């Protein structure tokens, strides 16, 4: 994108005025991206989540505002903006006000390095994935601030839970990135994607069994970092009321949720980029615009697949307990992630070119699993349809 702005500014003068124009351009473009893309997308994710849940729970979900309730997120957002912003008397007002912004800043900043398409990336940082994990750690600080400044013990427990959880799961998440970095030899998001192909066999996740394991570890760890079920302990509404967000209302409370839904997208994007070939599409045309659109669509689809899986998991699984969460991380995930790292390195030393046969075998295995799963789903669907038709009684 820098290049794009550079070309826009090519006609203006040099010196200070040009730099200021550059600054303005960047800020303007950033605002455009944040308000035109990131926030609406987080909102739409919220609508999608509610619709997906509703489908799973055999109910309708939001269906009043817009077609299929599509604009529900806008209505909710507006409503929350207009609500009274209550700050508890006993709270620490400065930090209480600041915390949601820090959380949102943490997740918005991650979008800088997310590659939406071959040429659609705000900045292709050469420390891409490292940058993303670095800035998302801001979220923890925000949550801790929120938890402490609310001056409520439930909030504080939520904040502490969140901090310990995110800190712990950053380790398996980071270690699961290593195999990919080893394979591609770069931290840059575009570099990682370019190292893969459009076909599933060329994806990092099918490189070796270790990367496949790393891929699964990565998704679990990212779910935990994003405070998603079954790891949503920091805001566990049935235990801690709403955890760190208990005292928040209106707009500020909305910002926390926005960050959560936005984070979902970041999780999906990381999964798509690192393991699933990102925006890679078969080269079917020379038209750059068409190609970019196709790439964007591909990336979007892959990302939303993982977003959907996260929603599905949330609608299905109960929540784990704190000690179970920690033992899962330290006793299982960290050692497995370590093994993955060394295993990948070993595979790279033994078969430097990578084994197509292994990739095809892993691909086939995955396909087999998917088919089995599909048949099982089909069986259950049929069975539930049976009882839906058997005994439907007329309402009085």
């Amino acid at each position, binding site marked *: 994108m820098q290049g794009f702005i550079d070309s826009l500014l090519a006609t203006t003068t040099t010196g*200070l005025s040009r730099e*200021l124009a550059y*600054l303005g351009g960047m800020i303007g473009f950033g605002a455009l991206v944040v308000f035109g893309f990131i926030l609406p997308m987080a909102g739409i994710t919220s609508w999608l989540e509610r619709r997906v849940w509703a489908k799973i729970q055999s109910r309708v979900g939001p269906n009043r505002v817009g077609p299929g309730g599509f604009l529900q997120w806008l209505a909710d957002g507006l409503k929350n903006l207009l609500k009274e912003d209550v700050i508890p008397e006993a709270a620490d007002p400065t930090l209480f006000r600041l915390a949601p912004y820090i959380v949102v800043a943490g997740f918005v900043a991650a979008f800088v390095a997310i590659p939406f398409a071959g040429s659609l990336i705000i900045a292709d940082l050469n420390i891409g994935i490292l940058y993303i994990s670095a800035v998302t*750690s801001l979220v*923890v600080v925000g949550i*801790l601030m929120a938890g*402490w400044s609310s001056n409520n013990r439930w909030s504080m427990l939520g904040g502490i839970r969140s901090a310990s959880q995110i*800190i712990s799961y950053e380790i398996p998440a980071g270690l699961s990135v290593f195999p990919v970095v080893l394979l591609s030899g770069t931290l840059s998001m575009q570099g990682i994607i370019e190292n893969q192909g459009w076909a599933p066999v060329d994806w990092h996740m099918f490189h070796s069994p270790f990367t496949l394991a790393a891929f699964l570890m990565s998704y679990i760890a990212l779910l935990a970092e994003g405070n998603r079920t079954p790891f949503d302990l920091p805001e566990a509404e049935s235990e801690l009321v709403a955890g760190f967000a208990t005292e928040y209302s209106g707009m500020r409370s909305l910002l926390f949720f926005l960050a959560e839904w936005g984070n979902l997208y970041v999780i999906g994007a990381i999964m798509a980029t690192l393991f699933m070939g990102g925006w890679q599409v078969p080269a079917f045309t020379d038209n750059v615009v068409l190609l970019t659109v196709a790439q964007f669509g591909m990336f979007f689809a892959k990302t939303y697949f993982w977003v959907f899986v996260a929603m599905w998991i949330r609608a299905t699984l109960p929540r784990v307990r704190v000690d179970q969460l920690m033992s899962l991380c330290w006793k299982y995930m960290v050692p497995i992630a370590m093994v993955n790292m060394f295993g990948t390195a070993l595979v790279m030393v033994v078969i430097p070119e990578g084994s197509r046969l292994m990739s095809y075998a892993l691909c086939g295995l995955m396909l087999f699993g998917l088919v089995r799963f599909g048949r099982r789903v089909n069986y259950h669907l049929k069975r539930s349809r049976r009882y839906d038709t058997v005994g439907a009684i007329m309402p009085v």
Partner: protein
Amino acid sequence: MEEFSLSVAAFYFMAGLTLLGAGGVVFTENIVYSALSLMVSFFGVAGLYIFLNADFVAGVQVLVYVGGVLVLTLFAVMLTHQIAEIEVSNKSVGRVPALLICGGLFLVIAKALRGAEFFTTPGGQVSESSTYGIGNLLLREYILPFELASVVLLAVLVGAVVLSRKEVIAPDGTPVPERETIPLTEGQRVMSSPRAALAGAAAKQKVSDV
């Protein structure tokens, strides 16, 4: 005097942020505010690293210091005595010794800086990623110190585990794992203690003939 440009302004902004944060750490009376000022300072330093073309170091700075050290600090601070009350302050005590020590340190550093020779690379030369260089240095030239450091870290890890695991002695004198027991008092029952399982099994037998 350099020509004023955006990068210069950004540099001063970052440097100012660092100093401001550092000042905040020292002068705020609220310990949580201090910790959060530290975050500002860390971000300033990360920005300075970027000016030095050390983007990897900048990333690691944020990841390790903000994501790790700072959060742990906050964590520890929040677990301290009566932190649940918002009005916590750390009273400034011992201003005079602090001034003496800091002043002395400042003098030493200033002296060293005055005497030092700085090597500067020609401007305008932007190197590619520093990650590659760092990796090469760590794993080729400095592999021994690198490995030694990891051994030390491992020792620290083990030490932390040993220190934090308190051994609990059951009433009958045998040590028991911590999570699983709480001293039993009259009428109290405890989850998943081995004794409870035994009691449950015994009682199961007793009831089966009811």
